[in-house]
């Protein structure tokens, strides 16, 4: 039995008080619950796929695990034995967690190389020469058809959708995560790049035993990966889970049909 890398128990996530445009309301604004009672675990080397319709709560799971400050999060989450919710976002990364953003954020005046370098320096606690930084992603960059000088540009500023996603993967692999959460990494990518990314992910997993938690709508990025688990979310709950069969079923039937079918058999609408 493989070692569990992530254990999530009774994860509850709500969005923090939304500031009212007219100032704070007497009740302190509304707190909207997005996820409740979410339990799952991921073992070393596993690939887990999160499925669900738009707004089901998939991105909220990964970004709340990453420590997105917009959310109030409760429950029990262990990352390789450590109490994840007690760690700051950067500490989570240094412990081996990484999330690629669905909508990567522009960082004006800061290049990707600088981001990777700063992260490596935090980990090492000292200076990392620029060549050592570039070494970490030259190979991946070449495979994705990007020149390493591209990553000297201000991160995500003026990037196309596909470039942003490649840039996310470059950063992820340069920082050698143990659990990599991919939030629609493949959206906006051309088919060849999706294939190549799938291959790169499979190879990285083989080399390092890294685990994946993947959100994807077109599933092409899963081609070269072996899916161990799939979780179907609906309205902030786990609706059902399964293995690679569920992914295939979703691909074939679509999510709504499965939801209807299962709801009917459960006797509820």
């Amino acid at each position: 039995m493989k070692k569990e890398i992530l254990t999530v128990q009774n994860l509850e996530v709500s969005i923090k008080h939304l500031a009212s445009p007219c100032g704070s309301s007497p009740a302190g604004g509304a707190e909207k619950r997005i996820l409740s009672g979410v339990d799952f675990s991921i073992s070393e080397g596993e690939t887990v796929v999160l499925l669900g319709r738009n707004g089901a709560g998939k991105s909220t799971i990964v970004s709340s695990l990453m420590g997105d400050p917009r959310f109030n999060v409760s429950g029990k989450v262990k990352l390789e034995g450590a109490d994840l919710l007690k760690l700051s976002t950067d500490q989570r990364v240094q412990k081996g967690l990484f999330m690629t953003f669905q909508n990567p954020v522009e960082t004006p005046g800061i290049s990707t190389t600088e981001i990777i370098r700063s992260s490596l320096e935090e980990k090492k606690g000292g200076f990392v020469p620029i060549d050592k930084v570039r070494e970490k992603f030259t190979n991946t960059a070449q495979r994705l058809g990007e020149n390493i000088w591209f990553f000297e540009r201000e991160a995500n500023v003026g990037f196309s959708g596909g470039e942003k996603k490649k840039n996310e993967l470059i950063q992820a692999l340069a920082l050698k995560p143990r659990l990599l959460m991919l939030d629609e990494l493949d959206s906006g990518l051309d088919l060849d790049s999706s294939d190549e990314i799938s291959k790169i992910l499979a190879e990285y997993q083989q080399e390092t035993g890294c685990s994946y938690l993947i959100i994807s709508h077109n599933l092409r990025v899963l081609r070269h990966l072996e899916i161990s688990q799939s979780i179907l979310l609906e309205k902030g709950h786990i609706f059902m889970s399964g293995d690679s069969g569920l992914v295939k079923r979703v691909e074939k039937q679509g999510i709504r049909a499965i939801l209807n079918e299962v709801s009917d058999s459960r006797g509820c609408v």
Partner: protein
Amino acid sequence: MKGLNEKLVRSLSEAKKEPNWVLDLRLRGLKAWNSQKMPAWAPDLSELNLSEIETYVRPKTEMVSDWSEVPEDIRRTFDSLGIPEAEKEKLAGVGAQYDSEIVYHNLKKAVEKTGVIYLPIEEALSDPKYSKLAKKYFLKLVPPEDHKFNALHAAVFSGGSFIYVPKNTEVEFPLQSYYRLNAPGAGQFEHTLIIVDEGASLHFIEGCSAPKYNVANLHAGCVEVYVNKNARMKFSTVESWSKNMYNLNTKRALVLEGGEIEWVTGNFGSKVSMLYPTTILKETGAKCEYTGVSLASKNQVLDTGAKVIHLASNTYSTINIKSIVKDGGVSMTRTLAYVAKNLSDVKSFTNCKSLILDDQSTSNAIPEVKVKTLGAEVAHEASVGKISEEALFYLMSRGISEEKARGMLVRGFTAEISKELPVEYAMEMNNLIKMEMEGTG
């Protein structure tokens, strides 16, 4: 020498063996200083007691053109600032001032051969070989009576550089003057006079710094730049004063037909800074591009900005200023775009952005636009913002601590300015921001 009176001014002039016309300018300055009031709109200057300021501090050395002859303790200071090193590799010439006098001045032989003149200002004013030229320009663009602190400057100026670039001469490497104010309670009043003749080009770099003492120091320098027909000038400066410094500085440029000036300015440190480099676009086709950054932290008021006066048609200017405030610092950004009567095809664009890092700090923009013609396109934009929480989360999600991520975002905010600076100055600027962000500044 402390304080300011006629006896002091006369003895300073005598000690410097100046011609009478220079003494006359000094006395005009003294008269204006005594008659003019403190500017009513200025930040609080009440702690600045001029009778306690040493207006002249002579370093214990003569001016030389060989670093090995500079006394060791002074040389060590400039060594630590990286100046002799930079001179070897990247500069056409270097001037270094310590307190009130230039201690080192050197121009590479190859550059000297092209007719470029780069001298301590006193030498240019006193030596008959140069004084005719210097007299034509010195304290003409910023006359002694221009404002109270230029009056003070004119009365007691000491040190600084004189540069003349002959017609159609391109100075390939920059010239750099570095001003170090080391004596506690002292004032520094250097004068920089630059003439770039027709079709010539020059990049001048100015650096300023001072260690911290518990008494107030004063810097009231003056820079006059003449950019003649079709000439090009880039003036880069990083001022990093200690936080007891009153930095009341004047910089002005006159640009003639088809000429261009580019200012790149970093304002750091000081207790109070008042500095608004001004460009007069006097003839058709003249251009000005101003880029500046300032950072005001605890107990600091940085009252800075830039002004452009369009006096001719077909002139163009941009002012791009970024200010950062933190820990209760105050930033005032004053800009002026002036367009005179009966002009056509004038374009002027001003953009001021401010980054406020906490609730205790204040940032004000005071843009002034005076357009007296219909033939001008003048635009002004100002914005104030905080650090983006989204970008902060993004950087932290790459494994970067919050403190470091904030520092990166602040440096990112000023990146377009640091990339305009020579690399070592850009590094210095980034370091200054980093030190401020980590509270070690």
